[in-house]
Structures are given as structure tokens and as C-alpha cells.
């Protein structure tokens, strides 16, 4: 082990001399890949330990030159120190963490993946490219367009048009409908009939709605007003109301004081 270590250190000086600073590097993985390439072995046979040492030496060299180093390069350096310790120390049993070998294998896989993309990029860019190496027809024949019109119209449009037209032609004056209202005050007036009645008797709440109210819509509104008014009267201790169950008729009776 020690042998290989010193041996690798020998090669180290060479690689570092080629790398002067971080300019032109695309992150720590790029530095690692560049260093790995200098090992001149198949990436699958790469010594991660050697690589870690090379990277750490490289960062050290940069530090000595007082060149500013981006944080992610330092993070990688710290991680490689950790990886080194994992690789060099005896394996811990029953450890949940990934072993040094596994971590090294992962890093190697990452480097191979990045390398494969570098190679792929080269292959793509050296292809015969349109407008650079191969050319389409420069002056194509004009394509004559024959336009077919389709009208965008639905049955609804026709009906609406006919209705609008009829509405316009009928010239019926528009009469604004008077808004119906049966206010709580109105309802209180109607309910006051039973207040103070000497002979208290249950009456249907609805019987206190004027008979002139016929439409359901208006009735609904009147019932609401009458019910609210009756609650007022209950609060004042003037009447009692009763309902057997939901939606069943509501009865009202004067309360004897």
C-alpha cells in the first residue's frame, strides 16, 4: 500500500504542473475527471485513492498561491478526506453507512457518467451539421396555397342572432321590475296582531304573510323576514315559537306576561 502511495505521489507532481489554477474548470467533478484522465487508465480501473490524493494536493497548491477557491471545491476536498479515511481504516461491522468502497465506486460511476457525456458531446458536435456541412435546398419552389374557408359559426350563434333581432324589432319598452321586498319591519307589523292576544293560541308562521304575496320567490323572502321578526319577538319575550323537526311547519304563539 505504501509503495503504491509513493508511486502515485511521483505522478502527482506531473499532473499538478499541468493545472495552474481553477480557470476553465467546470466544478470539482471536472477537476477530478481531468486528474483521472491523467492516470491514463480505463476509468473503470481508476484508483480513487490516488485520485483523492491528487485532488487534495491540487487544492493545496492553489491555496499556496492564494487563489480564491469556490466553496464547492473545498466541500469536495473535505468529502475526499472523509472518503480516504473510510478507505484506509478497517471496515466497521454492522454500519448503516455506505462503506468506503461503495462510496468510491459511486464516485467512479459519476466520473464515468460525466466522461461519457463529454465523449457524446464531442461526437454530436462533429456530426455533419445542417447549414454548416450539409445544406437543404436554398431556393425551393413556391408552394401555392389554396385557401378553403370554413365559417366559425354554431347553432347557438344563429339562435342568438335571431333572438336578438326579434327582441330589437319588437321594440317592447323595457320596464324595470319593482324589486319585491317584505322587510322585517313589515313582518313585525303583521305579527303584532297576535301580541297581547288574551287567548294564546298556536298559529302557523306562514299565516302572517300577506295573501297578496303569491310568487314562490316572494313568498320565500317573506317567510325569511317573518321568521327573523319572530326571533326578535322571542328575544323580547313576547312570543314563543316551535318546530317539531327540520323543514316542518313553524308555529308561533303569544306569550302571556
Amino acid at each position, binding site marked *: 500500500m505504501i509503495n503504491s502511495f509513493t508511486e502515485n505521489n511521483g505522478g502527482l507532481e506531473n499532473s499538478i504542473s499541468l493545472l495552474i489554477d481553477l480557470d476553465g474548470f467546470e466544478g470539482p467533478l471536472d477537476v477530478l475527471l481531468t486528474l483521472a484522465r491523467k492516470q491514463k487508465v480505463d476509468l473503470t480501473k481508476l484508483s480513487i485513492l490516488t485520485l483523492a490524493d491528487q485532488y487534495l494536493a491540487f487544492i493545496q497548491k492553489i491555496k499556496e498561491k492564494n487563489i480564491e477557491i469556490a466553496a464547492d471545491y473545498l466541500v469536495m476536498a473535505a468529502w475526499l478526506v472523509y472518503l480516504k479515511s473510510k478507505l484506509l481504516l478497517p471496515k466497521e461491522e454492522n454500519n448503516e453507512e455506505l462503506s468506503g468502497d461503495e462510496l468510491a465506486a459511486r464516485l467512479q460511476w459519476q466520473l464515468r457518467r460525466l466522461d461519457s457525456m463529454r465523449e457524446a458531446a464531442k461526437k454530436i458536435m462533429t456530426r455533419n451539421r445542417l447549414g454548416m456541412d450539409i*445544406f*437543404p*435546398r*436554398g*431556393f425551393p*419552389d*413556391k*408552394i*401555392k*396555397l*389554396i*385557401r*378553403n*374557408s*370554413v*365559417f*366559425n*359559426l*354554431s*347553432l347557438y*350563434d*344563429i*339562435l*342568438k*342572432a*335571431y*333572438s*336578438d*333581432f*326579434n*327582441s330589437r*324589432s*319588437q321594440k*317592447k319598452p*323595457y320596464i324595470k*321590475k319593482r324589486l319585491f321586498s317584505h322587510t322585517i319591519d313589515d313582518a313585525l307589523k303583521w305579527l303584532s296582531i297576535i301580541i297581547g292576544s288574551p287567548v294564546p293560541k298556536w298559529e302557523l308562521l*306562514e299565516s302572517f304573510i300577506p295573501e297578496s304575496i303569491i310568487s*314562490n*320567490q316572494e*313568498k*320565500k323572502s317573506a*317567510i325569511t323576514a317573518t321568521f327573523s321578526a319572530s326571533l326578535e319577538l322571542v328575544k323580547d319575550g313576547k312570543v314563543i315559537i316551535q318546530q317539531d323537526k327540520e*323543514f316542518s311547519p313553524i308555529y308561533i304563539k303569544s306569550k302571556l306576561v
Partner: protein
Amino acid sequence: MVQNDKIIRMMEAILFAAVQPLSEEDLSERLPDGINLNDYIEQLKNKYAASGINLIKVAGGWSFRTAPDLSFLLEKERTVTRRLSRAAIETLAIIAYHQPITRAEIEEIRGVALSKGTVDLLMEANWVILKGRKKAPGRPVMYGTSNEFLNHFGLDNVDDLPGIEELKATGLLSPDPPQNINTQDDESHT
């Protein structure tokens, strides 16, 4: 012979990629010196004479152009969606509801003169067709809707068009704002 083929290939590429017809000077400039250009042009013309594209002289230069008898292949149909004017839609509606109807009757109903193009447009769309002549002075032509009209709007026949009463019921015909009275609900709660 090998040289000959090479020149022909070069001319093919140059003429194909050129963005405009190339004059003989343009061609000479881009081909090896000392060749007999006219000879090669003649060869290339013959090579393509029977094919779908021909080498022809246009606007003072040489260019590959589609063989004239195949120009029909270069027609492309395109469907454009157009909107009808309100007057046209209204006219179509009146024709649909009142057919057969004469132009004068449409104008009478609408209270305005019908511009010449309106009915033509509806006929061009294949929605309105002639429905004979009215037995009246001048025997004016009458219009009605076509089968195409029924198909397009998903109707079996013109009687399927909602009547005036139905239109009123849907609120389309009422000059009042539509009322959203829900009578069922009222009954169930009172």
C-alpha cells in the same frame, strides 16, 4: 470520366443549395478552372430532363425547378376559419326561420337593405341555396337552407330549429334580464 462525374456532383450541390438562380459566372467561380461550363450545364440539363426537377434558366441564372407538369403537386390546401358578420348571421337565421324567402322579404323583416355580398357569402359557405321563384310580380328568387346547413348544425330538418316560444323560454328572446328562479327548491322547503 471520373473528373466529369465530380464536376457534375459539385454543380448539383451548388445549384441545389443556392438561394437564388446562379449565373454562369457564379458557377464558374465556384468550380475548378478551365472547364467547359456550357458542356457541363448541357449534361446536367439532360441528366434531369426526365426527372421531377429540371435544370432551367430563370432570371439570367440556372436553377433546379419543379417540372412544369408536376406543379399541381405544389399546391397545398389550407383551411382558414373565418367569422361571419352579424348581418350575415342574422340573415342566415332569418332565412332558416322564414324559408323560402325572397331578398325583399329579408330586407323587409330586417328593416335594412341587404348588401350584395351577404347572401353570396352564405351561398358560398353552402348553407343557403336557391329554392325556386316566388309566384309574384318579377318572380323573385327565393332562398332557403341546404342539407349542408342541417349537417353543419346537427339538425335533422328545419323544423328542429327551436320555435319562438322556446327561445323565449330559454331567455334568449326576452328583453328582460333572465331570471334565475328555481321553483323546485322553493316548494320543497316551504
